[in-house]
């Protein structure tokens, strides 16, 4: 799931200063689950903004709506009749959602209310940890299900470096050394051979915007997209 963190209130307030009528849009998928940008967070943020702007003697009118997924045009359709009456949109979705919103309503200023942080796991309610950098070249099979790109601070493919400190990473005692864990797990599975061979330089696939078209599907042409 995509994990996000709400931006500092001051930053959000600053972005909205010139506007007096704003629609705050939540997203009901990842950011709702990680408690950053769902329906509830929209209500809290709007209450804060409303009060703060009153205190500033510059009241703001705020609308609130949470769509199922801002990263899906189908779910944005319901907003078409709404956005016209607002001066700007404040999106609490991840960066992908914000951009789709901005693409659909190019005449409206769109502002992000959250910082998209990582692809991660739900360790407990409110506690999330990063696990994937979406590098497009997954090596988890070789590394015992522990990602060296994400979990190693140096992203080494032939670790561990000399900084591993009794199982911790050199950057932080509380951060386990990914390669130490990889070693332990492969050792447990009797698969150390898997990392004895040199892992060659990665042909990075994530240095330009990527598109995925699954087998059996194709890019609809412009005419079809218009329908």
């Amino acid at each position, binding site marked *: 799931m995509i994990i996000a963190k709400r931006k500092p*209130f*001051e930053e959000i307030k600053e972005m909205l200063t010139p506007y*007096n009528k704003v629609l705050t849009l939540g997203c009901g998928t990842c950011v709702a689950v990680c408690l950053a940008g769902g329906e*509830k967070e929209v*209500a*809290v943020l709007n*209450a*804060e903004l*409303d*009060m*703060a702007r*009153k*205190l*500033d*003697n*510059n*009241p703001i009118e705020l609308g609130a709506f949470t769509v199922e997924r801002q990263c899906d045009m189908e779910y944005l359709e319901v907003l078409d009749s709404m956005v016209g009456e607002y001066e700007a949109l404040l999106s609490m979705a991840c960066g992908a959602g914000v951009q789709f919103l901005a693409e659909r309503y190019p005449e409206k200023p769109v502002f992000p209310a959250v910082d998209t942080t990582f692809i991660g796991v739900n360790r407990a309610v409110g506690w999330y940890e990063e696990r994937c950098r979406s590098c497009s070249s997954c090596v988890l099979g070789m590394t015992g299900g522990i990602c060296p790109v994400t979990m190693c601070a140096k992203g080494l493919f032939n670790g561990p470096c000399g900084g591993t400190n009794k199982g911790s990473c050199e950057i932080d005692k509380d951060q386990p050394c990914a390669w130490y864990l990889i070693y332990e797990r492969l050792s447990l599975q009797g698969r150390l051979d898997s990392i004895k061979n040199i892992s060659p330089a990665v042909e990075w696939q994530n240095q330009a915007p990527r598109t995925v078209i699954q087998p059996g599907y194709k890019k609809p042409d412009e005419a079809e997209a218009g329908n």
Partner: protein
Amino acid sequence: MRLEYPSNIRIIRVPCTGKVDVMHLLRAIQKGADGVYVVGCLEGTCHYNEGNTRARERVEYVRMLLEEIGMEGDRVRMYNLSSGEGPTFAAYAREMTEHIKKLGPNPLKTAEQNSGKKGGGKREAQAA
């Protein structure tokens, strides 16, 4: 037992303080309450185990939110007592009332009154 407590307090009953949501507290302030406090069971005695501890966390969160927008977080507080402690309830009510009186009225009300006087002019100035 008839106990006196300040009459300016409006009591909202909930089955458990665990039911009190961040938005309930925030909305009360937003609508002009000068202060809000949550009275829960003593910690460790929640019938639902952690209703009152959750309430305390939410109170803390709302205090933080108020500070964030430039208001006194201490307008929102949490108190704990057992159901048989009528006098303590009254004492907390008096304490909270005194405390809020010291802080003064909800600044939103003052701001609203001010904007009532000159808010329109500001809008025009912006349009120009």
